[in-house]
C-alpha cells in the first residue's frame, strides 16, 4: 500500500478503535490512542512502533473481517512500521533496501559470505587453510587480526552511525526531547517495559501468536534471541578488552568469559530465532502484513546463521575444518553488521523510542469522560 493510503487507513482504524476502546487492557497502543482526539501522521507512526504485534486486539475485534468495517489493526500497523523503517533509514538512497527487504538481506548475506570465503581461499595457502591450528593466535594464522578488525570495525561503526541517526530523527519527530532522555523515571519505565517485553503479555495470558490461542512462547523466544544477542555483544566486548587491554589472543579457553558468554548467547539466539521462525511458519495469515514477512524472516535467518556458524566454529576450532568455518562465520558476521541498519533490527531502536514516549504519556491524567457503556 502506498504511504498516503497506509496513513489514511491507519487513521480510519484508529477512529474506530478510539470510539470502541474495548482493547484498552491489552497493551500501550490503546491507552496512548485514548489520549488523542485526532491522529496526525507522526502520532500514527508512533503508535505503529509502540505496537508489538501481539495480535490480541485482532481476535478480540468485533469489527475484524468479515465485518464491513474491515478492521485489521495488527496488519495495518505492521505495514506502517515497515514504512517508518524506510522513512528513517540513513542515508536516504539506502531506504530502498526496505522495499524488498527479504531479498536484500538475503543477498547481502550470501554475497558477503561468499566474497569472504573466496578471498580467503584465493589469498590463503591451502596447506594453511586446511591445517589444524591450536593455541593463542590460531585464528590469525588463517586471517591476520588486522584483516578481520579493520573491515568489521569499519562496517560496524557505519552501522552504528546509521542506526543512531535514524533513532535520533525518530525521537525528534515523535516529540521526545533530549532532556527527557535524562529523566531516570522515564528511562527506567521504558527500559523495564522493553526488558520484560511487557506488551507481549497481552494483559496476562500472552499474545495471540501464531494463532488465536494465547501463548507466552513468542515472548520467551524473543527473550532468548534478545538476551542471547546482548550476551554475544558482551562476549565480543570482553574479548576486545582481552586482546587490547591484556594482550591475550583468541581463541580463549572454554572456561573463559568470552567463550561462556558467547556460547550461552549463541544458544539463546539459536533457540530464539529458530522458535520465532517456527512460529512464523504457522502464523495466521489474516492479521499478518505480507510485505513485512520477507524482512522478518530474512533477519531471523541471518541471526540464526550467525549464531549457528559461531557455535560450529567453537566446536570444530581444533580440527582442520576451522579455517573454512572461520571464513564462513566471519563472512556472516560482516553481513550482519552491514545489514543491521537496513533490516528488521532497526525495530529495536524505534520500539524503544516509542516506549520512551509512552513512558511519559502514561503519566498523564486519565480521561474523565463518562461512557454510555451501552450493553
Amino acid at each position: 500500500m502506498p504511504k498516503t493510503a497506509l496513513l489514511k487507513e491507519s487513521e480510519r482504524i484508529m477512529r474506530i478503535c478510539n470510539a470502541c476502546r474495548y482493547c484498552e487492557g491489552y497493551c500501550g497502543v490503546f491507552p496512548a490512542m485514548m489520549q488523542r482526539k485526532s491522529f496526525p501522521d507522526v502520532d500514527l507512526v508512533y503508535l505503529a512502533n509502540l505496537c508489538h504485534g501481539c495480535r490480541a486486539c485482532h481476535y478480540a475485534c468485533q469489527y475484524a473481517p468479515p465485518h464491513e468495517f474491515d478492521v485489521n489493526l495488527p496488519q495495518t500497523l505492521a505495514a506502517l512500521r515497515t514504512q517508518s523503517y524506510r522513512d528513517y533509514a540513513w542515508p536516504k538512497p539506502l531506504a530502498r533496501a526496505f522495499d524488498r527487504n527479504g531479498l536484500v538481506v538475503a543477498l547481502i548475506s550470501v554475497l558477503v559470505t561468499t566474497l569472504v570465503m573466496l578471498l580467503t581461499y584465493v589469498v590463503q595457502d591451502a596447506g594453511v587453510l586446511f591445517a589444524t591450528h591450536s593455541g593463542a593466535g590460531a585464528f590469525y594464522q588463517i586471517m591476520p587480526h588486522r584483516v578481520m578488525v579493520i573491515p568489521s570495525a569499519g562496517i560496524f561503526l557505519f552501522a552504528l552511525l546509521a542506526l543512531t541517526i535514524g533513532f535520533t530523527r525518530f525521537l525528534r519527530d515523535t516529540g521526545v526531547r533530549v532532556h527527557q532522555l535524562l529523566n531516570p523515571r522515564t528511562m527506567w519505565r521504558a527500559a523495564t517495559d522493553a526488558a520484560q517485553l511487557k506488551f507481549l503479555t497481552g494483559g496476562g495470558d500472552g499474545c495471540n501468536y501464531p494463532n488465536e490461542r494465547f501463548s507466552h512462547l513468542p515472548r520467551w523466544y524473543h527473550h532468548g534471541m534478545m538476551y542471547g544477542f546482548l550476551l554475544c555483544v558482551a562476549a565480543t566486548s570482553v574479548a576486545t578488552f582481552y586482546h587490547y587491554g591484556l594482550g591475550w589472543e583468541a581463541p580463549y579457553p572454554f572456561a573463559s568469559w568470552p567463550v561462556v558468554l558467547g556460547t550461552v548467547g549463541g544458544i539463546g539466539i539459536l533457540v530464539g530465532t529458530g522458535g520465532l521462525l517456527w512460529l512464523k511458519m504457522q502464523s495466521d495469515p489474516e492479521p499478518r502484513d505480507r510485505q513485512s514477512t520477507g524482512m522478518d524472516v530474512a533477519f531471523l535467518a541471518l541471526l540464526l546463521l550467525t549464531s549457528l556458524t559461531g557455535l560450529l566454529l567453537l566446536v570444530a576450532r581444533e580440527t582442520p575444518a576451522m579455517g573454512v568455518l572461520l571464513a564462513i562465520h566471519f563472512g556472516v558476521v560482516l553481513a550482519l553488521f552491514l545489514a543491521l541498519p537496513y533490516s528488521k533490527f532497526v525495530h529495536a531502536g524505534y520500539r524503544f523510542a516509542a516506549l520512551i514516549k509512552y513512558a511519559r504519556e502514561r503519566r498523564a491524567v486519565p480521561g474523565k469522560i463518562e461512557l454510555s457503556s451501552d450493553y
Partner: protein
Amino acid sequence: MIDTSHIYDVLIIGGGNAALCAAITARREGATVLLLEHAPRTLRGGNSRHTRNLRYTHKQANDFLTGPYLEEEFWQDLSRVTAGKTDEALARYMIRESEDMLDWALNNGVRFQPPLSGTLSLARTNAFFLGGGKALMNAYYATAEQLGVEIEYHAQATDLRIQDARFTSAMVTQRGDACEVRANAVVVASGGFESNVSWLKQAWGDPAENFLIRGTSYNQGRMLRVLLDQGAKPVSEPDQCHAVAIDARAPRFDGGIVTRVDCVPFSIVVNKAAQRFYDEGEDIWPKRYAIWGRLVAQQPDQIAYALIDAKSQGLFMPTVFSPLQADSLRELAEKLKLDPDALENTVAAFNRSVKSDNFDPSVLDECATEDLDPPKTHWARALDTPPFYGYPLRPGITFTYLGVAVNAHAQVLMGNDEPSPNIYAAGEIMAGNILGQGYIAGIGMTIGSVFGRLAGQEAAHHAQNGAA
C-alpha cells in the same frame, strides 16, 4: 456434519454467552452436548460479541471492582428501570446466583480487566471483559471445545418437535442440508427477534424500517416464534427492547459499540421539524442513554439531530463518524436538511432561556433552562460559538424483550403455566422475564450467564436422570 445417528443428552440452540454458559455447564456435568450456532465461526457469539461487561453481585471490592454491590442495591437498580415490570422472585434469584459468576467465568478462561478510564459510574458494579465480548466468547468456545462440546457453525434450528410439552427433536439446516437432531433435553438460547424487520414492523409499524440493529443479523427470532406457536407462555411485549440513539450513518446491522453518540447531555436534540422534544440534561449520561432510542423512535421519520457548538467538543467520547460541521446555524440546518428558520428559532428560544453559567460536566450542575418546554435541567449552555456540529441520530435496537416465560429451573412455561419437562431457555429469548422494560448496563450478560448456567445444569440432570 452433524451426527444424526446419536441421541445427545443436551442440545443447545444458539451460540452466544447464554448458549456457551449452558453448553460448558452441561458438559461439565457429564452430558453429551451438541451446540448449534447459526452464524459462521467468524461471526459467532450473537450479540455477546458486542458486549463489554457483566453486572453481578459481590460482597466486597476485588481486583476488578472498586466496591461491594449487594443484592438489595442490584434489585433497587433493576426495579427502578423496569418500573415494576419484572418477576421479582426470578429477578432476585438471578441476582443472588450472579454472585459467583465472575469466578466461574475466570475458571472457564475469561479474563477481566481493572476498571480503566471512562467507566467511573460502573467501576463498582460491572466487571469488564479484557478485550470485550468477542474475547469472552473466544474463551468460552475454546473451553467448550476442550471439554468436548460438539460445535456446529452455519447450523440453523428451524423447527422443534414438541409432544405434550416434551421436546423430542429439532429440525436443523446446515449449508443447505436439512436434518433432524434428537436429544433428551434442549436449551434454547438463540436470542431475540431484533434482526427480523418484518416482525419488528408488526410491533412498531412502518417506523421499524428506520431502525438500525446494533447486533448480529442472525437473531431472526425463529425459535421464539416456534416456541410461542407451540404454546409457550409469552412474556413482555413485542415493542419492548433495549434501544439507544445511535449515529444514523451506522450500518444496518452489527454496528456495535462504536456507533454510540454520547454528546446528548451537552447538546440540544431536535427532530426533523427542528423542534426539541425531551430534556437532554435530565441525568448523567450512563443513566439516560438507554431511553433515547425509544425517544427518537417516536419522532417523525425516526430521525433526530444532536447539535453542539465548539464549546462542547471534547467533553464526550470521540465518535466514529465525523459530525456535520458549519460556521453558522443556517448553514448547519442546510447540511442537515432542516428548515433554517425553524432551527434558528429553536436555538434562539433555547439560548434565551439559559441562565446559569456555572457549567460543570462532571456533576449534575446548575445550568438549567427557565421557562422552556421541554426544559433542559442540567448542562444547558447557549449554542453560540461556531463552528456548530450536528450528529444525526436513529434508534439503534440492541435486543428485544418479547420472550418465553421460564421458572426458577429455566424451564419454559407452556400455555397452562406448566413447565416443560425438558425445554429450557436462557439469554435474550427469556430476558423479558427480568426486563419488562428499561435497561441497566451489563444486565443482559447477567441474565445470559445465570440462566445459561442454570439451564445447562438442569438440562444435564434431566437428560441423565429422568430422561425416560
